[in-house]
């Protein structure tokens, strides 16, 4: 088998599948988004042009979900990178050696590998305002009981805390592994020159781990768009619409209860466009900053 045959034999089937999986659903969604298809209605399906899109941007509930999604991403990315790379990774890297360090790493990746549905239930049990262990501990300090999931002002942050819990530890573990790869000589040379601990991090370690770290940051950002599992199990978008993210709203509209397939399709197209724009901006920015 020549190189060219090998290339064609393996590339073509895989990319046929991938192109189909990627573009067929999206083209379909775009097609439906121009119609007025409604699963709960018997009226004939016809084309309505951009009506769904125009309606979207006057839909207060849609604009609210857009805001919630954005807030969700900023909170979860910001805090998990801060806790994970900023606090936990240096703590372990400087203070845990040998097998203790390996145990720490092992425990750190556990929260992220748990099924998100499972993690959501674990926290829902702990958050409960009637039987929850968190409110029990808070009661020692005379606080509470707090309705973590029932109070509209806390609900989003309470759910985001779970995502931050999962990701801080994972990001910490990944950062520690990155730190391990830095040649010891560089760090020793730095210490001999009398550099302080933070100076070592700032001027020697930081520049070395930035490129791989940026890809971790990027992955976390993209994963933040997947908030549905937590929100569905913990609040289902409530109370009211306090935790209703874009995917939650699109789900209710298209599949859940309303059956407005076309309207929900236009929402998923808008979401896709926003994601593509964001990815491109962030990706370009990261690349430029790195250079």
């Amino acid at each position, binding site marked *: 088998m020549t190189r060219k045959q090998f290339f064609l034999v*393996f590339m073509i089937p895989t990319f046929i599948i*991938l192109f189909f999986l990627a573009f067929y659903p999206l083209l379909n969604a775009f097609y439906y988004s121009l119609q007025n298809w409604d699963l709960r209605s018997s009226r004939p399906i016809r084309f309505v042009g951009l009506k769904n899109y125009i309606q979207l941007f006057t839909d207060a509930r849609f604009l609210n979900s857009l805001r919630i999604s954005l807030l969700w991403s900023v909170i979860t990315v910001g805090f998990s990178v801060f806790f994970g790379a900023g606090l936990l990774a240096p703590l372990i890297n400087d203070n845990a050696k040998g097998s203790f360090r390996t145990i720490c790493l092992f425990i750190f990746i556990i929260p992220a590998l748990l*099924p998100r549905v*499972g993690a959501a239930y674990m926290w829902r049990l702990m958050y409960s305002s009637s039987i929850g262990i968190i409110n029990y501990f808070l009661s020692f300090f005379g606080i509470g009981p707090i309705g973590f999931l029932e109070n509209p002002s806390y609900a989003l942050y309470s759910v985001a805390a779970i995502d931050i819990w999962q990701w801080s530890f994972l990001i910490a573990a990944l950062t520690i592994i990155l730190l391990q790869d830095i040649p010891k000589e560089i760090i020793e040379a730095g210490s001999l020159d009398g550099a302080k601990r933070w100076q070592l991090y700032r001027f020697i370690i930081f520049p070395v781990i930035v490129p791989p770290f940026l890809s971790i940051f990027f992955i976390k950002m993209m994963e933040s768009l997947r908030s549905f599992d937590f929100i569905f199990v913990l609040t289902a978008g409530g109370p009211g619409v306090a935790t209703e993210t874009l995917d939650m709203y699109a789900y209710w509209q298209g599949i859940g209860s309303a059956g407005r397939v076309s309207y929900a399709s236009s929402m998923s197209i808008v979401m896709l466009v926003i994601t593509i724009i964001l990815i491109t901006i962030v990706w370009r920015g990261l690349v430029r900053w790195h250079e």
Partner: protein
Amino acid sequence: MARVNGKDIFYKIIIILVLLIALAPILWMFLSSFKSRVDIISYPPKFIFTPVMDNYKRVLQMPTLMHGLRNSLTIVPISLLLGFIFGVPVGYIFARIKFKRSADLRFFILSLRFMPPVAVALPFFLIWMRLGLLDTIPAVIFTYLTIAISTMIWLTIECFKQVPVECEEAAHLEGCTQFQVFSRIALPLAIPSILGMCIFIFILLWNEFFLAFVITSQRAVTMPVASAAFAVVGMEVPWGQICASVILLSIPPLILSYFFVKFLPYFFKVS
């Protein structure tokens, strides 16, 4: 010296507290899964109680959950295997063969992983509905290929790049065909890290909720979907059963995480 030791102990305590935060939710749910119906909803929460197996017994007799478990055990390995067959050779091609548009195709693969789930789920729901395949195992497997193949390609590129290129060049000079170089040299050398990636993808698919939730309802539900059904069951939350089913759901990822951690270094660098 004494001051250093004091500082040492201080940091050790902090680390242990941190580890406790990482594990507390899992431990608490594990404990609760052995509580009786009365103990689980008592306040203040009970730390000492008579453990009972009632919750597990009940969960193991629930048809939906057992059905979900069987479906997951079918869907996830098959998707993973197909991901391997279609993904690994392509990962090798990206790592070793230069061709036009290589970077664009790689970005396409990356972007598959990052498509907003709703943008994928809703069209798939409609497609499977029209084909009459909604709520069937083949539909779930085919949908999961989006994740399995793209992640497999993306992760194995790095695995193959770590194989010393000299080995492959030597094999080429010996007159091996490209396929032989791949199957006899590159694949065996990269297989440890590729297996690590397979574990990762297994966990990813095992935990997947949203897509399965949208395209299944009864016959083809996966384990996470079956467990999540408790969330909408009604007013009284059956905490005992939830705890037991969540622990069952979490066992495979927890066991695999032990193997996974050994492969973690492969994710970034050859050791």
